[in-house]
């Protein structure tokens, strides 16, 4: 990093001059510091082909942002392009006809927001540096496009003709000015009270691929895809706000107009988000590990959750440690974790070097709040921030991978870890000491079970049915990865993921790239498995159809086992029959046909049979039918639980007895 110091010094100097000269409400008009192409930096981890210098000012009263940005973009494909495409995310909440809101309505997840909740993003000026080095106004050439659904009322993607072709490895410089109305929380962005969480907030380039621009509209179930670069961002806010942002803070200047300009810089990141509140408790700890680079962890905590700081730091450190050991080092020097404000809807989000956790004011020590979400979002630094898949099309590759890895962290690092319910408007928690959270729960089998056939994962994610998209993206992927782990063993899985991480960090891998790594590491392609879990929406359900044991004349016993594939998807499973004398018969059924029949002649009668006794196939949507016992205890169990339930009902009757 030391080779960047001269440039950084130039940045800071120019920044100070700009700030000193701009004691006014307008964003600074002075040219931003000239930056040589950062991709030439020898320590660049990524292509750094989309570099942003942003100068933005928050109007706290009007809940708006005015900004100016200079983008230096380099074409890293082998094809030329004559246009640029930008995401204008906040226009998704401009009116009810955006694609985002149409999809929310379609999913039954839409409630009309209050009148002041809407947002907008208007590009007010766009200039291109032409071949002569002069800036040319391109404002009038901008137009909205809807590449995904043709929705002419959607304004989340903007196209800008360049008037020339930018060839491979050529660079273009653009200046934009924009104004944006900040929404009340919509999809984890917005303001509530004095708290701001500002994400997807600036006009951001799509990704040019060999096939053309990959700039999807903002959809209800997908969010990100952008190129890596260097971000140099100046945020001017009223004085007194504590600010957290992607990258690291390099300067803070108090201005004469009672504002403060916060400067953040980040290298090899592909997005930039920030948060601000005067109420944050600003805490820091240093993560240290014998073999991993140190990380300064900054926690911006809500005052009402002051007592949860240790829990936050513990899970952040546990995640940095385990992901670092398992997959590869977290290379950035810092990480900011935001404890989001109540009702901000900004919980559980990931941005490069900045994530939000999730917690409640009252949370039992044995629950997974704030640990669960925090581990997940920190984990996204690997599966999203560094291995930057196209989340519009293959969201399972970051959310699913990360859900699986998070479940591993939680299983190891959170103890006790129990199921909780919340009562009285969800404000009052109750932890069930009898019900531990297991890997299966964290891998989210219950949600998947209900929607297993909703979509096949190969479908581009933005085309998933909106209300069940998360089930397929998160749950199914985590479950099939867990299943693969049970089959291959954790050391192999760990090698798969560390190889994949090492090969694809700071790049944009596609599904085939992951499958190739699996083949490379295991020596087998596992096509049959990926055909089932990735290319199909079939469900897995194996079970015992028949189980009987009969005594023969010669005092031996004939045991008949019929196991069945009830679902359409196939997977090899073990079938284990246990006999009274303690002997076990284990069969491996390829699971292809509808049934398999096993007959045993043994000196002892059989007592139990189990299909997939080790629960390798975590995707099995009905595991109860996987076993049978000839000494069943269903009666006892059902009696016990119906008595519990009866007491609950009696108590309910007495509660209603208040009214008479």
């Amino acid at each position: 990093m030391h080779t960047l110091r001269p440039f950084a010094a130039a940045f800071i100097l120019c920044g100070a001059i700009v700030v000193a000269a701009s004691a006014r409400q307008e964003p600074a008009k002075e040219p931003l510091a000239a930056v040589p192409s950062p991709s030439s930096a020898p320590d660049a981890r990524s292509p750094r082909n989309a570099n942003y210098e942003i100068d933005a000012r928050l109007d706290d009263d009007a809940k708006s942002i005015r900004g100016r940005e200079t983008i230096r973009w380099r074409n890293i494909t082998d094809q030329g392009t004559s246009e640029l495409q930008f995401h204008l995310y906040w226009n998704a909440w401009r009116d009810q006809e955006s694609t985002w809101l149409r999809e929310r309505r379609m999913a039954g997840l839409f409630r009309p927001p209050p009148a002041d909740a809407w947002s907008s993003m208007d590009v007010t000026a766009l200039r291109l540096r032409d071949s002569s080095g002069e800036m040319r106004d391109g404002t009038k050439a901008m137009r909205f496009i809807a590449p995904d659904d043709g929705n002419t009322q959607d304004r989340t993607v903007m196209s800008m003709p360049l008037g020339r072709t930018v060839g491979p490895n050529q660079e273009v410089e653009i200046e934009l000015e924009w104004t944006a109305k900040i929404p009340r929380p919509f999809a984890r962005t917005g303001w509530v009270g004095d708290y701001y969480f500002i994400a997807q907030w600036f006009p951001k380039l799509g990704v040019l691929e060999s096939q053309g621009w990959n700039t999807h509209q903002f959809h209800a179930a997908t969010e990100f895809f952008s190129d890596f670069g260097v971000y140099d961002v100046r945020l001017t806010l009223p004085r007194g706000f504590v600010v957290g942002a992607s990258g690291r803070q390099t300067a803070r200047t108090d201005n004469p107009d009672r504002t403060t300009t916060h400067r953040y810089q980040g290298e090899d990141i592909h997005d930039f988000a920030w948060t601000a509140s005067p109420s944050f408790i600003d805490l820091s700890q240093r993560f240290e590990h014998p073999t991993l680079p140190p990380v300064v962890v900054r926690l911006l905590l809500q005052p009402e959750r002051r007592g949860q700081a240790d829990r936050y730091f513990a899970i952040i450190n546990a995640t940095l440690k385990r992901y670092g050991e398992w997959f590869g080092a977290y290379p950035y020097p810092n990480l900011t974790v935001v404890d989001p404000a109540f009702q901000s809807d900004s919980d559980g989000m990931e941005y490069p070097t900045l994530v939000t956790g999730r917690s409640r004011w009252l949370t039992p020590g044995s629950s997974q709040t704030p640990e669960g979400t925090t581990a997940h979002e920190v984990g996204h630094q690997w599966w999203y921030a560094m291995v930057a898949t196209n989340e519009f099309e293959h969201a399972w590759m970051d959310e699913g991978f990360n859900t699986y890895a998070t479940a591993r962290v939680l299983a190891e690092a959170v103890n006790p870890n129990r199921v909780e319910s919340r009562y009285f408007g969800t404000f009052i928690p109750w932890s069930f000491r009898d019900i531990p959270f297991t890997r299966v729960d964290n891998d989210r089998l219950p949600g998947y079970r209900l929607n297993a056939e909703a979509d096949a994962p190969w479908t581009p994610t933005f085309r998933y049915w909106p209300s069940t998209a998360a089930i397929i993206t998160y749950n199914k992927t985590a479950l099939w990865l867990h299943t693969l782990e049970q089959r291959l063993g954790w050391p192999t899985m760990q090698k798969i993921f560390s190889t994949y991480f090492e090969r694809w960090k700071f790049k944009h891998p596609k599904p085939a790239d992951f499958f190739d790594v699996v083949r490379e590491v295991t020596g087998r392609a596992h096509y049959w498995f990926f055909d089932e879990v990735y290319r199909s929406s079939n469900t897995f359900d194996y079970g015992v159809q028949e189980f009987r044991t009969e005594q023969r004349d010669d005092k031996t016993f004939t045991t008949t086992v019929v196991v069945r594939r009830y679902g359409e998807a196939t997977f090899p499973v073990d079938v284990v029959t246990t006999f009274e004398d303690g002997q076990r018969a284990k069969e491996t059924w390829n699971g292809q046909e509808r049934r398999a029949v096993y007959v045993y002649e043994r000196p002892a009668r059989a007592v139990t049979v189990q299909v997939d006794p080790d629960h390798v196939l975590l995707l099995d949507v009905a595991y109860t039918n996987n076993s049978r016992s000839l000494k069943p205890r269903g009666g006892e169990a059902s009696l016990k639980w119906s008595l519990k339930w009866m007491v609950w009902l009696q108590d309910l009757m007495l509660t209603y007895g208040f009214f008479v």
Partner: protein
Amino acid sequence: MGSLSSQTPVSGLESARRAWRDGWQRVLDAPAVAAGVFAMTLLLALPLAILLQDALASHLGSSLAAETAATGVNYDWWQEFTAQATGLGTTFSPSVIGFAAVLENVSGVLDGRTPIAPIATALALYMTGWAFLSGGIIDRYARQRPIRTHGFFAASGVYFFRFLRLAAFAGLVYWWLFAYVHPWLFDEQFANLTRNLSVERTAVLIRLIFYAVFGALLVATNLVADYAKVRIVVEDRRSAFSALSASVRFIRHHGRHVVALYVLNTLTFLVALAVWGLIAPGAGGTGLSMWAGFLLAQLFIVGRLALKLQFIASQTALFQANLAHAGYAAARVPVWPESPAAEAIR
């Protein structure tokens, strides 16, 4: 017993304390009443529990999942069961375990959750049962002497239709509270007040205030209905409307006594809940420990029923102490087979 006197002026708290003590005495003197309402609570819940047991047993079949479900909690099976459950099965959640049941139920009422149809039917039957028995219960507590089974049920029958008319008034108020006041408070006003809140603690405080306000409205309605019932029985009032207005008059003139007694009874109830919170059994296993846990839970139910009876008995005692005298009831002991139908056509 019978120590209260309307002749000696006493403070609200002292009067309430005496009524509270006297109420307990009356409850303890009539164990058959407690046994009867316990039997009703048990017998109404039992058929539904049997239905649920059938559903659970059917889903478990002879699966080995039953092993862990029997010895503790098999949460994977539990979630699989609820995923396919309909009707009663949908109410089988972890909240049935231990003290969570109390939280779930109180929270359900205060949050205005509507029970599913089979549960709502059972609740309606249960409340009707209470409406029927209340006449006999108050009559027994008012007289402070055994009236035997026939006297008890005759009194229940005599007062049942009066209580039904009273319930129509009270029900109308409760309906208005839940249909209009509750959504206005908890949906509209809570949303408005917390709209710009970024601090959950403040939202909790507002919610608690709203619970207190709504709870106070429920309690006020409850008090008026309770003393109306007492006045119907003790003074042999025929008109539910006049009993209601008499109840309001009594509460207005003896407000401190009434409130102090209600507070004492409520505190007793909260102490009982706290004790239950400490000793409520968890999932447990089967066999002896299961039955021991069930027995303990039934003792809690009996305790709650005794507390409900204590509300009735102590309110009766308080009324008698202030406007009548201990053991006073205007009507003669109803004689079997005087039926509710006969009363209805008078």
